[in-house]
């Protein structure tokens, strides 16, 4: 349900940009999703495919989602690593207390159109 709102925002952003640039047909659409965004790529794909048919310009659009890993740092030994999901324990010193940075945003990176 949350992904339905995101798919709506994605299609709004595509239509705004298409209006601005006189694009009549949209092809590949690249979205970058932070690993900590708590949105589900499969659910976003599904919602996008349902909603895209409401507009001729987006009807044939194909969504591609790249999941961006999070930057992580241990508060104890300062070890830096990338985390694919919430990680609480440092892989180096095994202690709890990991700082996770950014990676909760979902952005429209680029799309192809004509």
């Amino acid at each position: 349900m949350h992904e339905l709102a995101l798919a709506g925002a994605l299609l709004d952003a595509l239509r705004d940009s298409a209006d601005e640039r006189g694009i009549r047909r949209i092809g590949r659409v690249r979205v970058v999703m932070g690993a900590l965004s708590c949105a589900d790529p499969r659910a976003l794909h599904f919602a996008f495919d349902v909603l895209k048919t409401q507009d001729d310009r987006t009807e044939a659009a194909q969504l591609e989602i790249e999941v961006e890993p999070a930057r992580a740092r241990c508060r104890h030994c300062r070890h830096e690593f990338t985390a694919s999901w919430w990680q609480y324990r440092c892989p180096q010193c095994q202690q709890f207390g990991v700082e996770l940075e950014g990676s909760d945003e979902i952005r429209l990176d680029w799309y192809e159109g004509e």
Partner: protein
Amino acid sequence: MIRIKVGQDLLKANDRIARSNRELLRSRGILCLNLISSPGAGKTSLLEVTCRRLGPGVRMAVIEGDLATDRDAARLERFGIPVVQINTGTACHLDASMVSAALEELPLGEIDLLAIENVGNLICPAGWDLGESYRVMMLSVPEGHDKLAKYPLVVRKADLLVVNKTDLAEACDFDWDVLARDLEALNPALEWIRMSCRTEEGVDEWIAWLRARMDVSAR
């Protein structure tokens, strides 16, 4: 086909409205809370006890978000405070535009404290800024001591954690050490209060937390 670089955050439209809500509330000196919890953790009970304890000296108002019914709104209207009900239908969270519309229905010049009771859900509400001053996460003891680790995003974004229904801790084998350890791992700076809306344990602490922030907002 040409490739067009956009680089736009999909929550940007929401964030813009949230900023304008925040500016409006700040200009009126209103402290605004966004209450987030699972269904049944006790958000409405917390607001009831808050109304009782703050008394008529603090002018309170509530925006209620629920998929359906106005039962929570009816519970709070008994206190004679303005309540705006938002029925989200199928949406799992409130967003800034829904709050913006609700603000138009409230007498903003006559409010000191505005509580927004979000839809009972620990996942989606964490991603949507409403323009609140503080995010208050609620957890209740029967939900289990693993709840924080299971829903990390909201823990990371909260300004205060209220753990409600402490009177049931023994019956539920609630392990406070697990809770404290997860809190330390996820958000060590997060303040938290043990509370029972039923026995009123921790309510003094909650009211003191609120009053300290209301004094700042009113300035």
